[in-house]
Structure formats: C-alpha cells, structure tokens
C-alpha cells in the first residue's frame, strides 16, 4: 500500500494558481493517482485521476513526473469557493479495498 504525504495546510489568494504536491515514494506499477476535494459537512468529491505525465479536465490539472514518486494538483485561478480539504490517493484498480485510502489531506484556504 502506497503511503502519501501532503502539506497539512496552504493559503492562497483569489485569482492565483495553487499547486498541491503529494509524495508517494513507494507507488506500485499498477497504482493510479486520484485527487478528491471535500467541503465541510459533505462527502469527498472526485477531482481528477491520472497514471503518468499530465491530465487536464475542466477543474484542474494533474502533473506526474516520469518516476511517479510524486504528483502535483494544479488549480488555476482559485476562488473563495475552492477553500476545502484536498486528498491525494494512490491505489491499483485490481486491489480495490486499498484503492481508496485517504490520508489527512491538505487544507486549502483561499483568502480575498
């Protein structure tokens, strides 16, 4: 099981780009990297998933270097409503029970 390490908290200002990096030094060959967002009193919400290089969707980008030992979630031009906890998960699609193991996450505060 790949353990992940993320910063506990980050602050940013509205309109800035935010990059949250996750370390997963013992990631396995079959593991995917997935990011979730959680607002208070709500369940986590899927943001993006990737295996290698770069993935982009309408919400975020995910950058994964060649060695896959880390990944960076990039949120362009954040707004106050992006204040939330962000979780990085790693797991294999064929090891399902372990595929969704959450760490403590990164608490992002977006300031006006």
């Amino acid at each position, binding site marked *: 099981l790949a353990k992940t390490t993320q910063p506990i908290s980050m602050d940013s200002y509205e309109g800035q780009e935010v990059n949250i990096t996750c370390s997963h030094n013992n990631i396995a060959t079959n593991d*995917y990297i*997935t990011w*979730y967002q959680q607002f208070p*009193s*709500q*369940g*986590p*919400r*899927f943001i993006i*998933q990737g295996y290698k290089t770069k993935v982009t969707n309408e919400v975020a980008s995910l950058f994964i270097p060649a060695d896959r030992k880390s990944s960076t979630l990039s949120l362009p031009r954040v707004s106050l409503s992006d204040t939330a*906890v962000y*979780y990085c998960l790693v*797991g*294999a*699609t*064929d090891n*399902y*029970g*372990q*595929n*969704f*193991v*959450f*760490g*403590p*996450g990164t608490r992002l505060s977006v300031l006006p």
Partner: protein
Amino acid sequence: GAGVSQSPRYKVAKRGQDVALRCDPISGHVSLFWYQQALGQGPEFLTYFQNEAQLDKSGLPSDRFFAERPEGSVSTLKIQRTQQEDSAVYLCASTLSDRGDEAFFGQGTRLTVV
C-alpha cells in the same frame, strides 16, 4: 435519485445502544464503500462490497461493526453496543464498476454517542 443517499443525516445514540445506518448508492453501481471520518481527519476505510459480496472488511474496528448489502444495492452499516469512540461521520461511496473509477460519496451520517 441522482446521487448517493445516506440516512439518517444525524443520529444521537446513548452508549450501549445499537444503530443502523443506511446507504442508497447510485442505481447500477457495482461497488460500495463505507468510511468513518473523525473530526479533522481524513476518511478511514471500513469495508468494501462488490455487488452483494463483501470483499474487504479489514477496516472494521471491532466485531461490533457489521455491514451488509444483501441484494447488491442498498447497504446497511450496523454498530452494536455503541461506544463514545464510535462518534464520527460515516460516509458511503459507490462506483460504477470494480475498476478504480470515480467514487461518488454521500453526505454522510453524523453519529454522536452520549
């Protein structure tokens, strides 16, 4: 419904009481997960179902915790003889397949044991 539905949203139980928490996953979703989330912490995995089969229950903290999904849709998490340390938010999630795709979470049930 369009999303994962959990009931009740809030439950207060006296210590020693049994509770049952319900999860209605998205229709047709094969996989279902239960998590426990303590205040200020990330969700902790409890158990996983693929259809009606409980394939992983390694996260259940004690034999007081029991989960079932008898017809492969609705699931119930039962906690017997509740203790104060069981106070947490219990989250349910479902995914369309068993291949690691996007998980959809419910809003959770906040259990307070007094």
